[in-house]
């Protein structure tokens, strides 16, 4: 029994590292866990998949810019229609125009407005 205890003591003493190297290692470990370096394991793609990646990104860029252009165009048309209608109203009747230009600047959407969801609500009131 005593010999086994001695053996155990020897083994534990031998495996325990002491001195400044232990602290350095643990600090290094903490640092690597806390401060993750982005793109450290960057993918190394072969030429073919890199080309594909480029094409995909460019296609997405084109798709997005097309959408933005359409949206911008639609907004401009709506604004122009609004301007013309208001001008027509102003020339038709000054008092009605003034009545329509009321309303506070801090006007907001009503609170009961719902935003789009992925599935419809169970109870539609």
């Amino acid at each position, binding site marked *: 029994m005593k010999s086994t205890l001695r053996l155990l003591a020897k083994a534990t003493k031998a495996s325990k590292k002491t001195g400044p190297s232990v602290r350095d290692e643990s600090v290094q470990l903490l640092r690597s866990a806390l401060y993750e370096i982005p793109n450290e394991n960057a993918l190394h793609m072969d030429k073919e998949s890199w080309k594909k990646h480029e094409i995909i990104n460019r*296609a997405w860029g084109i798709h997005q810019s097309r959408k933005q252009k359409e949206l911008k165009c639609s907004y401009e*048309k709506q604004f122009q*229609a609004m301007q013309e209608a208001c001008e027509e109203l102003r020339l038709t009747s000054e008092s009605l125009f003034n009545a329509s*230009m009321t309303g506070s600047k801090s006007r907001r959407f009503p609170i009961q*407005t719902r935003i789009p*969801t*992925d599935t419809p609500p169970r109870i539609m009131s």
Partner: protein
Amino acid sequence: MIRFFSRQISTKPHFYAQFVRNAQHRHISTGCSVGTILIRSPILTRTPSEFEKSVYKYNAELWNELSAPLPKEFYFKKGSVGEKDWKTRQKDLEGRESPFQAIFENEHKLMEDNALSDPSTYLQPRITEADQAGDVHSTQRCLEKSLFLLIKPTKDAEWQFPIVPIESDQKALHLLCQEQLQNILDEQSLVWFVANHPIGLIKQDEKKLFLLRARLVQGLRVPKVENVFDWAWSSYEELPNRLSPTTWNSVKDILHDRL
């Protein structure tokens, strides 16, 4: 609200010339009326196109590959029981995106099939019965698109937006429209006018129709429209089928599929 408009526009030569030309036609007595474009905005999100879906999938896979793995040396001591346990669990997870998928796989399947015991977790289908029946009277039709209210006030009239003739100078346009909508819709539906001024104009041989924009807020389910012969909630694609060509030409720039 566009307070600065009057000064900005009247200095433009285009509008000044028009003003001089048509001075005699500009009075309310010459058949002006005001109408409302009542919009039921989309209830569901847009389905992404095939291209968009594939790009999202590609980016998700790329993100998974690029993201830093778990720093196992930090969390598990080398050779410890915890590390061995974690390694065996990682082997089970092979091919799945996250541990949650492995743990909750069965329940997730049950949830998607609406087989769980709690009825509040049931998902409703995106295509409603009104969609399948093609019921134009109900607002539950195209949940992804916006619907616009069209009315046939009498049997022989054509399809039009809810219109009120302007009689006098005294009552503001938005009040007239509000009253008319109150007549037509029931009490439960809440309508919110986006602005008090018109957003569009329809000219038809000296008759002017100013259009105001309103949204259906509460009462997204409008069971009945009263005091009219017939009504229809039509989407943007169906509008040219119902409206007259002059109306459609003036209105097609203002409206949109998902408004």
